[in-house]
């Protein structure tokens, strides 16, 4: 039985490392966007389009890292589209996000048809666990460079929000457009840039899906991960570091279902497969009324009024 617990724990560790990266990138992108006072629910579209573009470009060029860049580019375009449209008065950012999600997935499915079957070059991972001498632990510690990029990015964002002029401008724009304007900041421009960069990050997150894990392109690839990652930002209370923890937690919880079955606990696997959602909900309920919850939300967000 101890052994079973060990297997499940290793699977959760591995799951956290393998599955979390796309959540991380989308959540960080959304965190930046929301910090500036706008919400982009459509990053699922960026994720799916990024996954398709990355796979296609990697297939044609033979270099997966060019695919990653292209995915970032495609996400950037969708993000800019969202950023530009929402600049117009009376346009609702949540609705435009959902529209862009539909547009992005539509375009990805349409142009992605020829890439479902072929095998494109994937990203390699760094073996960090070979010293352990345990095959499954070594496997769990196969880490893709994008995972570290995500963590670095979170640290960088967290530092920049607190310590740089740019960070201050973004936060101020998000908290009170009026005072930002009073300081001579172009609110629209800040939000446009934040949304565009946020979109780019989500596109890169998509490239991880198609080029590393699960490492394939098809229409069912994302199954709502982009939407969930946007929700994780609220869960993480607009803190880049907490976005990382949330993504890791979500990835680990996702590994519970399959690994419990592998050690013989098979009853009710539907609920174990829903574990990430159930867990997130309970943590939210438990922590919702904690002090400062309201203070951390950007004041301008239409979703948290």
């Amino acid at each position, binding site marked *: 039985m101890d052994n079973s617990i060990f297997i499940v724990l290793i699977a959760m560790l591995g799951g956290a490392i393998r599955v979390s990266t796309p959540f991380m990138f989308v959540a960080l992108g959304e965190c930046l966007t929301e910090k500036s006072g706008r919400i982009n629910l459509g990053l699922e579209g960026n994720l799916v389009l990024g996954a398709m573009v990355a796979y296609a470009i990697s297939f044609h060029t033979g270099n997966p890292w060019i695919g990653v860049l292209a995915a970032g580019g495609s996400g950037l375009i969708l993000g800019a589209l969202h950023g530009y*449209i929402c600049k*117009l008065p009376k346009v609702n950012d949540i609705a435009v996000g959902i*529209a862009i999600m539909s547009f992005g997935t539509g375009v990805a*499915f*349409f142009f992605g048809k020829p890439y479902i079957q072929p095998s494109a070059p994937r990203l390699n991972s760094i073996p960090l666990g070979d010293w352990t001498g345990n095959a499954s632990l070594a496997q769990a510690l196969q880490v893709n460079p994008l995972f570290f990029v995500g963590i670095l990015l979170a640290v960088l964002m967290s530092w920049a929000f607190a310590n740089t002029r740019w960070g201050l401008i973004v936060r101020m724009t998000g908290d009170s457009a009026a005072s930002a304007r009073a300081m001579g900041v172009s609110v629209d421009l800040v939000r446009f840039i934040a949304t565009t960069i946020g979109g780019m990050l989500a596109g890169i997150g998509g490239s991880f899906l198609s080029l590393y894990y699960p490492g394939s392109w098809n229409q069912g690839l994302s199954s709502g991960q982009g939407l969930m990652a946007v929700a994780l930002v609220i869960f993480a209370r607009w803190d880049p570091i907490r976005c990382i923890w949330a993504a890791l937690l979500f990835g680990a919880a996702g590994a519970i279902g399959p690994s419990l079955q592998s050690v013989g606990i098979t009853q009710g696997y539907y609920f174990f497969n829903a574990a990430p959602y159930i867990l997130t909900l309970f943590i939210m309920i438990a922590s919702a009324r904690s002090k400062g919850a309201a203070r951390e939300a950007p004041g301008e967000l*239409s979703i948290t009024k």
Partner: protein
Amino acid sequence: MSAETAGSIPSTHTPNVRMLKFAEALFVPLVALLVSAVLFSLFLLIIGKSPVDFFSLVWTGGFGSSFSIQQSLQRSAPLILAGLAFAIPARIGLTIIGAEGALVLGGFAAAAIAIPLVTFGIPAPLTWLLMALIAMVTGGVWIGLAGWLRHYRGVNETISSLLLSYIAIAIMNFFVEGALRDPASANKPSTMPIGDAYRIGSIPGTDVHWGFAAGIVLAIALYILMSRTTFGFAARMTGGNVRAAQAQGLPVGLLIVSCCVIAGCCAGLAGFFEVAAIHGQANASLVAGYGFTGILIAFLARHNPLAVVPVAILFGAIAAAGGLVQRRMGMPDATVLVLQGIIFVVLLTSDTLYGRLKFFQPPVGGDRT
């Protein structure tokens, strides 16, 4: 920001101003549809297909014959209810994206309660009534829970309703593939079928099931509730500014939970009709994405319950025409997704035109900001 736009026109406007507003509300979306058509034609030309063929097929498939029109209406039935499920909480300022879960769970509850009712031979109309009730209660509790958590526990309703939606689907799957599985439903695990005698048929003279009529009735009822009653006024006021509403002594918590319960009832009722009119049992096919389509429908209808109906019919028509386009032009299903995406983006962008077209503004000044 968004919720106050449509419904809160001060009643002091003269009839003339109302006419202008109405004309504007027709003109802007029509222009947007035209622009979408032009953009999509460009897309078609780039990939080497004929826009003329495309749009004539869309017309044939969506509205070209009485058969096509009935198809469009039938497809719109669950979408009307799902659209209402998003629009009502939106009026009070909530973004509930979990109607899918309430629909699935409501449909499942209806199918589950039907098993003993059908077994004991309870008359069909009474069975339907009980099924519809349990579906609405289940859906209402599910979305109401998101509203309750929002107001009394401070849990963001957007994320909780999304999470609840995934959990609802897991619950349905657990029972449908476990305790409540009909042993005869071999390769498609389902609950016991209610049987032909208990199926809700079509509206006489048509092929459209009764869910469509129910959707229209509810849309009208909810329009009256939200625009013509104290409840609706209080809800809209809360949506505009929660603190002001609280300062006025409005029972904000009750209002929020009520709007969520209403939304859940709409979604649950859609689930009931899926079971009673379409599937005859509950199974994984209840998870068809209607709840998510409903979000866009509500936005395009600017959260006006009456406007939800024509928008839902338009969606139904596009879906119906999509099949014809695939078959005649040999284009993949994703074509329709691209078209829908373009329409959404352009229609929502067109919101910015309201109040900016001189022709539709009252002659004396304007309330520019």
